[in-house]
């Protein structure tokens, strides 16, 4: 009854991906801070890009962890990643400009504790468990924080809990019309949880190739960005939200086309269904 999970060898070493993922996502998430510096909302889409970079890292970590065979399926790793990540992300958001760093540290603590418990109490005894769950929690936190910053244009807690509604022409401060008060975080949670686990869940098996898995991870990230960009129309100005939407749609279309190309490269054969052309002059 055992289904072996097979992982392809080769590709970029995991440690290198960790460094790229960590530095890249932190830099990108801090680029959304340009919104506060310049007083605009045009840089919100960098939050989504940070999420995509973090997802690339997370997909590779899940590949490492799940190659040991957890017995619970790949999605559980994505769920625990976002479960611990969302707590860290919102805790981090309360610290203003230090939000990404604090979220990272808190996520590392929660993830490491979960990993230690999994190895030493639940006795999974998987060598990479502690480091993998730590990485996954950090990825979860950065993903949530990135998408939250994309929706609200900021990762500052006080700005995220207050929104404005227009009643009879007057702008009124309202907690209901805010990113957190509107429970957008719950939507982001699920969008990110599905995106993080899908890539390896779909690509695992004989002939798994790292570049194909990671391309699918990026595709999932951009796909999650699209609904987030649509939601952001409610919270940030029209033009910045439109920029977010364009970036996510273009990114998704590109990664999707690339992923199909890579899938065809790795496939034994495929069928390109073409419409049957009517002969000239009628049948």
């Amino acid at each position, binding site marked *: *009854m*055992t*289904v*072996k*999970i097979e992982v392809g060898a080769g590709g970029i070493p995991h440690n290198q991906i960790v460094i790229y993922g960590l530095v890249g996502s932190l830099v990108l998430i801090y680029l959304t801070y340009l919104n506060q510096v310049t007083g605009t909302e045009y840089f919100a889409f960098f939050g989504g890009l940070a999420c995509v970079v973090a997802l690339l890292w997370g997909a590779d970590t899940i590949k490492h962890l799940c190659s*040991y*065979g*957890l*017995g*619970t*399926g*790949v*999605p*559980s*790793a994505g*769920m*625990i990643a*976002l*479960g*611990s*990540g*969302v*707590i*860290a992300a*919102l*805790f981090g958001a*309360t*610290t*203003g*400009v*230090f939000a990404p760093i604090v979220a990272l540290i*808190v996520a590392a*603590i*929660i993830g490491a*504790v*979960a990993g*230690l*418990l*999994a*190895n*030493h*109490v*639940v*006795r*999974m005894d*998987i060598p990479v468990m502690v480091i993998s769950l730590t990485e996954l929690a950090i990825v979860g936190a950065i993903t949530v924080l990135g998408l939250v910053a994309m929706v609200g244009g900021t990762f500052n*807690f*006080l700005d995220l*809990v*207050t929104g404005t509604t227009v009643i009879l022409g007057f702008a009124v401060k309202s*907690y*209901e019309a*805010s990113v*957190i*008060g*509107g*429970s957008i*975080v*719950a939507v982001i*949670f699920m969008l990110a949880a599905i995106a993080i686990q899908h890539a390896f869940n779909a690509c695992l098996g004989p002939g798994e190739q790292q570049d194909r898995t990671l391309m699918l991870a990026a595709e999932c990230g951009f796909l999650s960005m699209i609904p987030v960009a649509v939601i952001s129309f409610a919270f940030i100005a029209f033009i910045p939200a439109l920029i977010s939407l364009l970036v996510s749609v273009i990114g998704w279309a590109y990664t999707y086309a690339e992923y199909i190309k890579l899938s065809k490269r790795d496939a034994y054969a495929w069928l390109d269904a073409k419409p049957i052309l009517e002969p000239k002059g009628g049948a």
Partner: protein
Amino acid sequence: MSALGGPAQTAGVQSPTGMGLAISIILIIVALALAFFLVQMAGLLALVGIIIGGVLIGFGVHFVPVGGAPAAMGQAPGIATGVAMLAAGAGLAGLFGGAWAAPLGFPLALAGGAIGGGLLMAITCTMVNVIYIFGMGIPAASGKVAKDPITGDTFPEYKSQGTEGHGLPFISWVGGVVGGALGGLGGTLIYLELLDIYQAQMPALLGATVEQIAPIAISLAGVFAVGMFLMNAVLAAYNITGTIEGPHDPKFKRFPRAIIAAAAASAVAGIFAIGLLELVGVF
């Protein structure tokens, strides 16, 4: 046997390592002390409630008949999906029930959560059997025990060769409902404790009334409850390593490990959720 090839499991239950136990106890004590230091007695009691909620979730997951991929092929008893999906379904349904009943008082909200989770599992288990029996044409037979402990039905005559049993016997149905109810109860308990904390702290922090901040408090408590629910459910899933038939399964005896892990994980995640508002406005 796991659906996706678990780590080597030796006979019997491996007890937690000394280091694991020590870390768990230290983490719980540190978290309780921090909660008392940050929010005084209310914080301490809230964290105790969160830990109890987490333990209920971790314990409840062991009742749920999880079949995984083999169950989808009718080769193992249980519901044909992973622990994380089932737990998320039952937990979210329980949370909806509990959150809806929250204004009606503490006991009624807890009962609402338990009924929500139990009801979802009851419907799921019933429909699973409808599909198994009328759609796939297979009878319910457990592979782990010869007789149903509740109804006394015998299984070996109905069990197909080469399978570990199939369908969903009555004992598994009962297990599913009990597990869903415990999960919903635990999730709702976490939600209510966090809601109390936020409703007590936020009005002063934001200079608003309890009614005005309700959307933020409910949304934060809800998403944290979901996050902690998934953390505990996945740790319990790691404890089960794949599939379980219900309370009659020999794997059920492993639950003490999951209880320790869930208590420590909820304590660590809970202290960040309780201390969420401590740093607002500091930076």
